[in-house]
């Protein structure tokens, strides 16, 4: 397993390089000059030119690219003039907020979605199954911006129970912190939760009809062990795949949710940076997210081995 992890970490370098190139090209394709956007419409031509020189934007694109890659190689993500802070500093400040929101959403999604899927599979073709599947279908297809606004309207505006926007500080106590977290986490959890319910149901249905489940029942062990130990462990592989994808997505910053609820995370950082044409920040954050994505996938691959002893990580560098 060690050599597998090492191999995958080495593979990280070309992956990040490719991501870097793509982000570089895309940011340069966004219309609008960063310097004039930053300085506003009143700025003089001279000021704009000075700032362009300072940002290195007066150089040719190949020259910009070379210095950008050289910085990357030294793990330097650059300095943002619009935020007056290094990109690393910005990420260090915003990423924990995204992690908090992502973990809260993931917790809700897993705790509700997976048991709902198991339950639906156990009660296949009954009213319980139909209700779970209908609700999850609605969940998967729900536009988050709409759901977010409805949640705010109902719980904040009408009932006044929960704050509509912002992030609570731990200094005001745990409850204040959680209160701010509930609505965005619920909105963000909807799609993963519904996805978990669906994948768990279909995976469990496939497993429940297997011979070894009949064997387990013929041993006279309790039904919760048959389902929880014998069936669920076998159903875990596809669930794990979806889990990995959802974690990567959530950690990448939930752009819509963070925008609606004014949550100071990575998603909003990227949107703001694009607005300000702050290429350095966009490039840095996207590369960072790509890094997280690859890392989460690596962890998921290792977990496959834990879940399924037949998986041989070392033989061909991946799943067998």
């Amino acid at each position: 397993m060690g050599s597998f992890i090492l191999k995958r970490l080495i593979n990280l370098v070309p992956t990040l390089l490719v991501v870097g190139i793509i982000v570089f090209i895309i940011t340069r394709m966004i219309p609008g000059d960063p310097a004039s956007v930053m300085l506003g419409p009143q700025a003089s031509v001279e000021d704009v030119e000075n700032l362009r020189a300072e940002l290195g934007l007066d150089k040719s694109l190949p020259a910009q690219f070379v210095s950008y890659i050289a910085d990357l190689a030294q793990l330097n993500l650059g300095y943002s003039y619009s935020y007056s802070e290094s990109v690393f500093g910005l990420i260090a400040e915003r990423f924990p907020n995204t992690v908090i929101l992502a973990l809260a959403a993931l917790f809700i999604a897993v705790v509700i979605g997976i048991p709902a899927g198991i339950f639906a599979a156990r009660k296949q073709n009954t009213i319980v199954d139909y209700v779970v599947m209908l609700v999850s279908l609605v969940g998967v297809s729900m536009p988050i911006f709409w759901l977010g606004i409805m949640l705010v309207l109902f719980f904040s505006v009408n009932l006044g129970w929960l704050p509509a926007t912002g992030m609570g500080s731990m200094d005001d106590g745990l409850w204040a912190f959680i209160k701010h977290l509930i609505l965005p986490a619920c909105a963000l959890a909807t799609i993963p939760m519904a996805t978990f319910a669906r994948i768990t149901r279909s995976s469990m249905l496939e497993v429940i009809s297997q011979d070894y489940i009949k064997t387990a029942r013929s041993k006279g062990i309790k039904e919760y062990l048959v389902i929880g130990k014998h069936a669920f462990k076998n159903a875990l592989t596809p669930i794990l795949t979806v889990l990995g994808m959802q974690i990567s997505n959530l950690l990448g910053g939930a752009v819509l949710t963070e925008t609606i609820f004014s949550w100071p995370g990575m998603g909003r950082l990227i949107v703001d940076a694009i607005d300000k044409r702050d290429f350095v920040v966009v490039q840095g954050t996207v590369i960072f997210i790509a890094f997280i994505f690859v890392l989460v996938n690596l962890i998921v691959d290792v977990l496959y081995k834990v879940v399924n002893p037949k998986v041989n990580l070392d033989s061909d560098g991946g799943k067998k």
Partner: protein
Amino acid sequence: MTEHLLNVENLTVEFKSSGSTMKAVNGVNLQLNKKETLGIVGESGSGKSVTATALMRLIPSPPGKITDGHIYFNGRDLLQLSEKDMRNVRGNDMSMIFQDPITSLNPVLTVGNQIVEVIRAHEKISKKDAATKAVEMLKMVGIPEPEKRLKMYPHEFSGGMRQRVMIAIALACNPKLLIADEPTTALDVTVQAQILDLMKKLQQEHDTAIIMITHDLGVVWELCDKVNVMYAGRTVESTTTRQLYDNALHPYTWGLLESQITMGTQEQERLPAIPGSPPDLTMPHSGCHFASRCPLATEICHHTAPELVEVQSNHFVACHLQSKEQIVERKEGIFNAAK
């Protein structure tokens, strides 16, 4: 009446699917004494596996349901037991091994875990003691290096070894009855013989009664004291193994016996096959289910179902032709008519 270990009366199992109902098992009776081996034979779809699964009350419901009958085991009617009491029977008093050892063991749990689990389900015993017992069980079924094997996963075992593990699991709690559902069908011929020998040996050591579900009459000959021949969910003939080989009465049993390879079978010789295929059990049927495939069928066979009748001591047949004489007479009649 002597107390049987297992006494099944009028067992009926139905499966419902999209509007139609299929009687997979239709009024089957079985008796089995301690230490005895009963063979249940029949072709695919004859209801033999469903019968076995029903004895353990493991028919998937829905779509299946035991709709009638009694299963007296050790004097108790299993169909009256609560699910909890039934769990105490499964794996403990009565256990089961299945056809395909490749798919019957859980691929993500170690073999040790799967043996320990059944022991701990029925005995108050520490994990460590259960593991020791599991090692003994593996040794008993002839698995070398049992301590090491305990920590391995099923995919690290060969097919024959996996079936040995299944037997170890089934016998871990020393059951009174072992139901073996075609335990050798998925194995190589040489391995088949080993598994049958092992079962025979363990039966003698542990005084276990066995129900052997098979379509292989060779297995019946080797292992069973008596046989139940099933066709289309019903028992068509039931007698001792000896009697079945010497004096089979039901035309379907003849068909099964004739389609066996014997020492006298010539090279390149085609084995006789029973023409046609089993009936659709979802359709209502008034006559004998075998009539359409039976070379000896008469008018009555097509509209009246024959009852299972004891034609000789311990020899039951469900056929309108109930003696050898009647059958010979009928055969000659057909032969003469053809001339």
